[in-house]
């Protein structure tokens, strides 16, 4: 087993997820960490956001993570051996105002964590772009679309549900152009 210091973001996420899962804490990796994994590091996040499917107590999470050497500082869990840190944003597991219907599982040497699918990851980033006009989130969206299979029809439907169809149509060509890039 690698030391935490040598683990990539994906390996650490898998390691932590597996440990939490053993403790009966059922969570999904979301946010910028998914972008980092799906873009194989083109975008680098240091923040591993885990959202619980069913809420458990903060104490239970803390006790499980202390076993791995993490310590709690403010709302984050840090470890002396790694620059990555963990956060457990309040649920529910959602993209915009919709619940996440299905997650995907990726295989790492340290475990098989559940995380947002590439299409939901795109929706998650687009939500930030739509609501905050955050250009970095749009760039992350395009990076994920560039190297993953994205269901554009589903993203359009979701954008419509969010009341952001006009905004989707504005960025659709960029999304398609990136998606079609070899």
């Amino acid at each position, binding site marked *: 087993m690698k030391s935490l210091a040598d683990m990539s973001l994906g390996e650490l996420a898998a390691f932590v997820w597996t440990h939490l899962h053993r403790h009966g804490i059922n969570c999904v990796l979301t946010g910028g960490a998914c972008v980092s994994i799906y873009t194989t590091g083109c975008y680098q996040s240091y923040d591993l956001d885990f959202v619980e499917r069913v809420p458990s107590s903060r104490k239970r999470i803390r006790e499980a993570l202390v076993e791995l050497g993490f310590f709690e500082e403010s*709302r984050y869990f840090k470890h002396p051996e790694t620059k990555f840190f963990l956060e457990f*944003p*309040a649920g*529910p597991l*959602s993209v*915009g*105002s*919709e*619940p996440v219907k299905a997650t995907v599982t990726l295989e790492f040497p340290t475990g098989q964590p559940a995380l947002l699918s590439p299409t939901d990851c795109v929706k998650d980033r687009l*939500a*930030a772009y739509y*609501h905050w006009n955050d250009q970095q989130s749009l760039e992350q969206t395009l990076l994920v679309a560039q190297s993953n299979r994205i269901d554009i029809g589903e993203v359009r439907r979701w954008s419509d549900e969010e009341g952001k169809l006009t905004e989707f149509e504005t960025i659709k060509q960029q999304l398609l152009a990136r998606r079609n890039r070899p």
Partner: protein
Amino acid sequence: MLEALFGSVNRERVLLFLYVRKEGYSREISRFFRTDLSQIQKQLERLEVGGTLYSRTLGKTRVYGLNPRYPFRVQLEALLDRALAFYPAEERERLMMIRRRPRRKGKPL
């Protein structure tokens, strides 16, 4: 009014204020309701951690609002809207009537 549901009268005040005014800061909310600043700050922080509110800084002031990405935002707003209808007319008016148009610096009244 929604205290039993929200668990605290100050939490209800914060949500109602931000629903009506769209954005606000802790001192503004505590002055409006003539309540303890630290209690309002505590509720703002808790609601932000829970994802119900967002915050941003405006100069040196931290401004809060209902988080547009909160999955229950539409339902929460419907609840607050319904609750607002039960508030006394003068309280509702006080909450809604706020000068939004610009005021030139140094203008006497």
